[in-house]
């Protein structure tokens, strides 16, 4: 006999999929945000769904959300530090315009 949690297990796939395809339209239909704000709220909704799902299924540790950070590994990130530094230096050469972001 299936427990209630087993019976509704399909929801852990169904809810993110429904949100992926229809979430933006659902938020837009509320008519309180548009454009970039709508995109930000939609993305943060996804973050909330993932974290709530991980907490509900007790997988926070398995997927690395509640583990202690090993700061001694920061030195291994040097290629990313170089890239990010380069990008920010280049931003000074291409100021943000009203037409762009």
């Amino acid at each position, binding site marked *: 006999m299936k427990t209630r949690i087993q019976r509704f297990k399909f929801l852990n796939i169904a809810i993110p999929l429904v949100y992926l395809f229809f979430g933006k339209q659902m938020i837009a239909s509320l008519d309180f945000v548009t454009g*970039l*704000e709508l*995109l*930000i709220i939609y*993305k*943060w909704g*996804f*973050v909330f769904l*993932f*974290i709530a799902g*991980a907490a509900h299924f007790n*997988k926070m*540790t*398995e*997927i*690395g*959300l509640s*583990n*202690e*950070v*090993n700061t001694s*590994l*920061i030195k*291994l*990130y*040097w*290629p*990313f530090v*170089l*890239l*990010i530094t380069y*990008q*920010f230096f*280049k*931003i000074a050469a*291409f*100021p*943000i*315009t009203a*037409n*762009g*972001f």
Partner: protein
Amino acid sequence: MVFKLGLLALAVALIEEIFFRGILLYWFRKRSYWQQIFYSATIFSLVHSLNLLSGFDIFIVALHLFAAFAIGTLLAILRLKDKSLILVIITHALINYSDFLFNGARGERLLTIPMFLEWIVPSIIFLAWSLYLYRKEKMITEPES
């Protein structure tokens, strides 16, 4: 606008890291390290092919795919060395943020030689560093038997 782009960059990084370096690596945990890394990076790269829908030149999309594969490979290796996602999330958010500000401000849709070099050189460095880390450094997260 700059603050809003920061919020967007952080949200995108959280979503992608939780899914690609959290959930996917957990799903593939019984496979070997190189399989975990390859599958995670390949799926991460293929998702970036959706950029075609944003009106980018096909060569830019191909370059995005290669760069996403290189970034995905290195982030997956770094995640397997650490039990936490926090450092990879912060790194990914900063990359997104600088990319939104820099490439978003330029708004280029066609591939140019400087743009090609700006993508290809870091990608090769990421892949070379990934290879070094994979061969030399020990993973902390052990695969399940």
